């Protein structure tokens, strides 16, 4: 799977990469009978297994009963991810203690580089309520599939790589139902009320 993706991306075109990611999404959802093919599963129906930035195991059932705000990214990304984390930190600041019950999780799409320690270094720069989650390549693939998130490794000329990934922030009600998506860089006037609706 990983090798096939690398080969296809090796052809070099981002267009091909995106087309392939969409293809993966369609293929994945065909053998999954429940849930909408495009929207995240309810948290209680998810079935992934990750490790947080403190090295503690985290499973979806741990989150049921609390509102959830989760998004995918990677810490080698200097623009999109810090922008999202800054936005989230500002939203949390505005919500104040009301958001203390909220689970706020950055799930990496780059587990090769984002070890728990790398995530810990990174999230320590932002609101302390934000946790980082990582796992094996397979564990991250499973989590991404449950959230209907797409990602792909994009090689660079110098042998390094970056990641394309779904950029939205997912909100869930305390009972695990999917609530809404906050788009990348969405205005605070729209984002904060969306979060507030999951808190009550």
């Amino acid at each position, binding site marked *: 799977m990983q090798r096939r993706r690398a080969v296809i991306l090796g052809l070099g075109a*981002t267009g091909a*990469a*995106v087309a392939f*990611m*969409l293809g993966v999404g369609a293929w994945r959802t065909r053998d999954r009978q429940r849930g909408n093919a495009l929207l995240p599963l309810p948290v209680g129906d998810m079935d992934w297994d990750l490790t947080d930035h403190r090295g503690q195991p985290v499973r979806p059932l741990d989150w049921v009963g609390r509102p959830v705000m989760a998004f995918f990214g990677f*810490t*080698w990304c*200097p*623009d*999109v991810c*810090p*922008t999202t984390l*800054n936005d989230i*930190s500002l939203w949390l600041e505005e919500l104040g203690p009301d958001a203390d019950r909220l689970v706020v999780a950055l799930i990496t799409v780059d587990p090769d580089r984002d070890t728990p320690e790398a995530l810990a*270094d*990174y999230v320590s*720069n*932002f609101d302390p309520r934000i946790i980082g989650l990582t796992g094996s390549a397979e564990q991250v693939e499973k989590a991404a599939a449950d959230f209907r998130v*797409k990602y792909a490794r*994009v090689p*660079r000329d*110098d042998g*390094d790589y*970056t990641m*394309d*990934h*779904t*950029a*939205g922030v997912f909100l869930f009600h305390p009972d695990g139902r999917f609530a809404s*998506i906050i*788009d*990348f*860089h969405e205005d605070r006037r729209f984002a904060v009320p969306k979060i507030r609706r999951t808190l009550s």
Partner: protein
Amino acid sequence: MKSLFLSTALLLAAPAAFACGTFTVGDLTIEHAWSKATIGADRPAVFYVEITNGGSTDDALIGITTPAATMPMLHETVVTDGIASMPHAMSIPVPVGETVALSPGAYHGMLMGLATALKEGDRFPVTLTFENAGDVTVDADVLSLRAEGPDCSDAGQ
């Protein structure tokens, strides 16, 4: 070239707030050159800046170089069908009468192969290459990882 640049860089005469210097080349004015602190030297850094074209010819930013990184590159963050990617930007248009910003979540300089980690308070030179106006070297100031941009309200501009 260097002395021409220095004579046109008005700000060098006056103390400026952090990342609030102004640089010029031809009819272009370059302001708010800044970067963010990095965690170590392995992760890439960013470079943000604002360019105003006060002339009568369209121009374009076509490259950046800096001693701070072996592989600096212009990127554009784009979100297509909800998926964020950051392709190489070959040429960032700077049309007559407009201000173009490299800013978080949009165009940015991506500094890969850092010589050393960037710490808040550091300053490093970045040379911008424009299609028509040529080269200009500006100072980029390193703000915190949490910064959204320089605060130049006290800079007396």
